[in-house]
């Protein structure tokens, strides 16, 4: 595990220094700007194989941009990414074959039914039709979507959309799974099921990189964490080391910086307007 708090990453350029053998996911010197705003400012990251890795950070810290670059959906201005020792930008097809991704706002072909959507993604990935159907049936059962399998995804609730998007991400049995806020809007029963599925997934040697605001969930399921702030990783390591006997929330607030607002400023709130 590497972290270089408040120190910009190495002067990496695309296809720069080779760090491919260090972990399931390795990023070096990732940078990305939008307009004049630097969203990611030199991220160095090593995710050990088989780990459940939590990527934390306040809103706008650069987590989603980082995940999009790690999953080859956004080209960085500078930096390199290796997935299972495969360089994402020189061998994108090989990298994409072993990646699964769930995005914060699942953008799906929502005029298909849940079953059709899974079949579509399976066929896009070149899976055999019979294999697709078998896996889709299993995923629909486990994620409690069987009853809605023939309904159009556009009619799904937000939580159901998250679950079908997770099924899409798992369908081709990827080696590395990237999840952006996977438990948002998920009911407690489904959340427990998903946690079990994901823990079983990592225990089999696969890797999960998981972004969340919910520190409680991260503390319960992640074995490694990194905290992103202003586009950089400010703390990273095994979760017990990061917590150092305290709570993850304390560490988070400390490294991100506590806000001054106490609520006293909104003295009018809750008082009668009559």
């Amino acid at each position, binding site marked *: 595990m590497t972290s270089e708090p408040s120190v910009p990453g190495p002067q990496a350029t695309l296809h720069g220094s080779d760090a491919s053998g260090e972990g399931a996911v390795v990023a070096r010197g990732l940078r990305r700007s939008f307009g004049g705003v630097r969203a990611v400012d030199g991220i160095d990251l090593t995710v050990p194989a088989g780990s459940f890795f939590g990527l934390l950070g306040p809103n706008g810290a650069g987590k989603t941009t980082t995940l999009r670059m790690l*999953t*080859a*959906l*956004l*080209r960085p201005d500078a930096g390199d990414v290796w997935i299972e020792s495969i360089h994402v930008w020189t061998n*994108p*097809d*090989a990298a*994409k*074959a072993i*990646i699964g*991704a769930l*995005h914060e706002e699942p*953008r*799906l*072909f*929502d*005029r*298909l*039914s849940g*079953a*059709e959507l899974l*079949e*579509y*993604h399976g*066929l*896009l*990935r*070149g899976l*055999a*039709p019979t294999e697709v159907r078998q896996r889709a049936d299993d995923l629909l059962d486990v994620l409690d979507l069987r009853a809605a399998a*023939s*309904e*159009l995804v556009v*009619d799904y609730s937000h939580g159901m959309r998250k679950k079908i998007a997770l099924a*899409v991400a798992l369908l081709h049995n990827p080696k590395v799974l990237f999840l952006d806020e996977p438990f948002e809007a998920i009911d407690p029963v489904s959340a427990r099921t998903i946690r079990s599925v994901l823990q079983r997934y990592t225990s089999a040697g696969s890797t999960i990189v998981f972004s969340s605001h919910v520190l409680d969930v991260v503390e319960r399921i992640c074995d490694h964490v990194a905290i992103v702030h202003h586009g950089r990783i400010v703390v990273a390591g095994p979760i017990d080391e990061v917590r150092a006997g305290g709570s993850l929330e304390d560490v988070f607030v400390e490294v991100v910086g506590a806000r001054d607002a106490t609520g006293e400023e909104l003295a009018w709130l809750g008082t009668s307007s009559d």
Partner: protein
Amino acid sequence: MARHFLRLKWALLSNGLRRHPWGTFNAAGMLLLGVSLGGLVGIGLAQLGRSGGDLWLPAVFTAMFALWLIGPVIAFGVDETLDPSRLAPLPLRPHQLVTGLLAASTLSAGSGASALVLLGVLIGFASGAATVLVLGAVIVQLVLCLVAGRTLTTLISGALGSRRGRDLVTTLVLLLMLVFYGLGQLPNLLLNASEGPVPGTFRVDPGAALPILRYTPPGQAALVIVHARDGAYGHAVLALALAGLWVVLLLAAWAWSLGHLARRSSQRRSRARVRGRLVPAAMRAVLPSGRVAAVAARELRYIARHPSRRVRLAQNLVLIFLPLLPLLGGRVFDQEVVVLAAALPALVLLNEAAVQFGSDGAPLWAHVAVPGTWRSDIVGRNAALFVLLIPVTTVLALALAALTGGWRFVAFVPLLTVMTWGIGTALGNLIAAYVPIAVPEPEQGNLFGTSAWQGQGCLLGVMSMLALVVGVLLSVPAALGAWRFRDNAPALLLVCGAGAVWGVAVWLVGLAAATRRADSERLEILEAVTQR
């Protein structure tokens, strides 16, 4: 309230322009068009008034009213103040909403154009004692137009909450479009129906339309001016009162529909259930690979299930059936030309291929995230268009054959359709790969296309027109060959067969170029078609 809504409208307009660079171009074009047209019509009416003519006035007022009815429907989703469901959560009473929304309506290119037209009426027709009545009629006409447009969009806003309502609105607007196309052909049809089809011999008598139009709300406003000009002040005042009554009725209907919309706490949505597999067995048997078949099947599902895709396709189909209109007017071409023309409209479907990535929008990431070339994806999309073309061109060819008696040419239509499909999709694929643009989401934007494209539709329109010209040029050799050998069936078959081979060759070349571009620029394409 009016001031707040005016500021809201101004903020929405200026923010939209800042956000979409093409939007500035689009807005400037709309403003220029509105001012030019409004100015020209206004000058014409001013001259008409001074020369003593007034027969056209009810027709002009009615046309203006009709444009105000349809314009906001087309622009629905672009102008957020047009959609009252967005304002429903605010604690505003219907009369406050009416005041505010009416004020917001005045801030548009359409209202500027209308003001110029009515200024022309005022200059041309107001004189002496009639001035007050003409001024009143002009004001009533403007308010009528604004209120009618807003009332219709409020009703539509409610209807768009359900799938059935969206389909109903879609159908109504398409029918209106067909009526407009038909009206455009009316002079032609009448000319051809008359015995002496010499241009200029046919005269439309505007007086014949007056008895009908005088009973419409805008017709009443026009009658005020006609009567006031004739010195029949009593009739003019009565017509003004009737036109004013129409305004009151429309305002009441608008206020009621606004209140009704606000009371609906949640919109019920019907949940559609679908059975069977994504890729039907017949398609699996014909198409080359799982990925091609999957994309083709998904495209066809989307065209059937997605409101804006259905509308766009229907618009294209309207274009395809336009060749029938001259026949209805009696201008019957030679049999072979008409029947072979059934294959030409397939070129129009290049519009569909041109927005193949934009139609997917953000979900296109699913294609970016999987390994492999996009060749199969493009082939799948093109195959779906071909499947659609089969019934359309068959119906069209049979209809044309029935009208002309050219049955023996029907068998050649499929071969020429292959050619035009190949050329059209080749050009469409190139536009999609080189000029990818985002297509508005139907729930956020409107159902009816181009005006919700924040100016990108203008760029696409220019590209599509150029591509259509190129497509026609590429089709010319086969068309000339078919004309040359129209009386020689074996030679005609050879020419049409060669045309089909030529179309497939063009398609392959276009496909290779589009695939090369799409594969190397897939992240940029995803970025371009994803709306933020």
